[in-house]
């Protein structure tokens, strides 16, 4: 008893639960369908459909108040009206593209503004009519979740289920259709009816979601979640999953805000929440995030500088021991772990003192270097290994550029200083394979381009 009581205390009240079920369903449905619209380059169609429903909403309201006994907002009439005009707007776009030389973007804009303009006219008629409940139509413009009734919530849930089932059942075929339509056709894979089904379900979802998000902003729920997902992954299934998740999370957070802050339209708060997720992904996204890319760049730059430093140390050590790496002369590791003077070692590089300090700190933190006295240091065993590897890769790359890529000796020099940057571990491995024989015979000379 007490447990059940505690649980129901934690859960939001029934009417809010209805709202949350509805908006989360809407987010999932638009997230999934939005991916396919994005891939098929039809994202803007959702905008046209959204705006074009206005005459349907206003007209549905007028008609239902004229012919129905209970004046006011008749949910069904408004739904059928918006569905009709949404469908008409799509037909108008397709007609214009097919039968005139208008481009898709122009056709979309004409359809959007034409229907929306008509809707504004009808809306002004409604407002002048003085019919009761006319102010409720505003919800259709900006969205309102508090008034969501249970039937609406279940419809959204149904829409999400249909979208999920459609995606799961026809993932292969949708994949082919979105990637390469011509090929899909030659394969005899479902193509025309699948495309139609996709469009129809998207249309219905957009219209069921109208009252929640508002017809002005419904497009955002179709566009922002897939765009957010694409910033994270290059895999179709993950894209779909992340997009649905973004839609659900954004819609839920937005509804939560709207329910708790008076007069905050749900559409606006839902889109704001979703946009926030997009913005965060833009910064941190694994695939194309701005900060992520900066971090990758920074990591490469750091590794480059570290390797350059270690290589300089190694060159000096070779000079001291009067041996040449890979020339068959014994190189004493023990002798190599002696103290060296930092400034002398990297005198050739024009590094600022800050940069020098940064590199030394990073090498010290990586356990490659130990500071012995002011301005003096020794390599650790690990640091020596890294230095040898860096020098080896560097020299092999030079050799490769000269022997295999036929780049003149004097030109190789231009590449040399950026070599660390371009020789990824993968490339370094390939280089080792190419020069396997020479490496075994230890015949790689020092700084080949200086010979």
């Amino acid at each position: 008893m007490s447990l059940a009581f505690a649980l129901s205390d934690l859960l939001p009240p029934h009417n809010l639960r209805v709202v949350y079920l509805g908006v989360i369903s809407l987010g999932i449905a638009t997230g999934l369908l939005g991916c396919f619209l994005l891939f098929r380059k039809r994202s803007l169609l959702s905008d046209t459909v959204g705006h074009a429903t206005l005459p349907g909403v206003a007209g549905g309201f007028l008609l239902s108040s004229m012919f129905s006994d209970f004046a006011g907002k008749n949910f069904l009439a408004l739904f059928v009206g918006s569905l009709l005009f949404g469908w008409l707007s799509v037909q108008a776009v397709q007609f214009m593209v097919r039968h005139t030389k208008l481009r898709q973007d122009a056709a979309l804009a004409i359809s959007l503004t034409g229907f929306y303009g008509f809707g504004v006219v009808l809306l002004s008629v409604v407002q002048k009519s003085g019919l009761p409940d006319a102010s409720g139509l505003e919800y259709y413009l900006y969205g309102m979740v508090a008034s969501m009734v249970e039937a609406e919530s279940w419809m959204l849930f149904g829409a999400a289920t249909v979208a999920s089932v459609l995606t799961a059942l026809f993932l292969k075929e949708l994949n082919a259709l979105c990637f390469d339509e011509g090929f899909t056709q030659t394969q005899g894979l479902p193509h025309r009816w699948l495309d139609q089904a996709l469009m129809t379900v998207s249309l219905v979802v957009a219209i069921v979601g109208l009252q929640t998000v508002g017809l002005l902003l419904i497009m955002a729920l179709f566009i922002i979640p897939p765009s957010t997902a694409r910033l994270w992954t290059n895999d179709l299934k993950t894209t779909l999953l992340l997009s649905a998740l973004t839609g659900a999370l954004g819609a839920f957070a937005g509804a939560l805000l709207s329910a708790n802050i008076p007069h905050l339209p749900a559409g606006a708060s839902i889109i704001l929440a979703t946009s926030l997720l997009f913005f965060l992904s833009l910064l941190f996204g694994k695939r194309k995030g701005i900060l992520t890319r900066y971090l990758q760049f920074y990591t490469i730059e750091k590794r480059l500088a570290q390797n350059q430093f270690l290589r300089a140390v190694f060159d000096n050590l070779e000079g001291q021991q009067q041996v040449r790496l890979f020339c068959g002369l014994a190189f004493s590791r023990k002798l190599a772990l002696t103290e060296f003077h930092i400034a002398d070692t990297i005198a050739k590089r024009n590094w600022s003192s800050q940069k020098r300090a940064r590199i030394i700190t990073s090498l010290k933190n990586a356990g490659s270097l130990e500071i012995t006295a002011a301005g003096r240091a020794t390599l650790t065993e690990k640091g020596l290994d890294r230095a040898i590897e860096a020098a080896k890769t560097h020299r092999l790359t030079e050799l490769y550029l000269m022997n295999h890529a036929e780049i003149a000796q004097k030109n190789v020099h231009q590449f040399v200083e950026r070599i660390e940057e371009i020789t990824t571990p993968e490339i370094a491995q390939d280089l080792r394979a190419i020069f396997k024989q020479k490496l075994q015979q230890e015949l790689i000379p020092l700084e080949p381009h200086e010979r």
Partner: protein
Amino acid sequence: MKAPVLEANHMTVCYDKKPAVWEASMSVPAGCLAGIIGPNGAGKSTFLKAVLGIIPRTSGSVSFFGEPYKKVKQRVAYVPQRESVDWDYPISAREVVLMGLYKSIGLFRRKTKEHVLQAEEALDRVGMLDYAGRQIGELSGGQQQRVFLARALVQKADLYMMDEPFAGIDATTEKVILELMQELKQNGSTVLCVHHDLPTVADYFDHLSLLNLHVVASGPIDEVFTKEQLMKCYGGRLELLTKLTESLGRLEALKA
């Protein structure tokens, strides 16, 4: 005698009432490497797409292996032009190749290990196995072309129709495609390529069609690849034909 692998009869295709291919007839015999060449905008790609029903034909008929296309779809593999798809699409090279098996996997079924193995074998044949997991946008133009080829290979078709496979590729890819074409021919398959590079025509193909709005000539390479025929196709004499068909198109448009 064996039926030709592809036979197009008096095929006309129109964009906006203006013919892009006009009264084109072509017959491709089995087991050859056939090329279609012609000047830019001559309707080569359009011809290929219309034959495959990707764009509608205004008139004329097409048959494959003596049968209507619908009956033998599985015996024909199509390699589209590289520019025709969005390379930013989230898909790996392996999955692109698997796409060639979607039909045989069937509706409501998932791919099995066997299918993945088949796809990887095809990738191996075009030297792209190492790149199986890469997103296709990360591949070079030539590598993308090879992935497309692998997708056609898994279909184990009898006729391979390729749209400009040699456009904008590297030497390695060119070699791979040529070897593959020879291999397919030896196995009794037929290859039909839309091509744009005149100097290589004689090296690549043994059957040739010259297309400029209509089929100027079609037959074994040594009969068709002659100075006179090329003059006919490329020499600008067809301008009058273009004008004629355009005025014909206008007339049709008025009627419609």
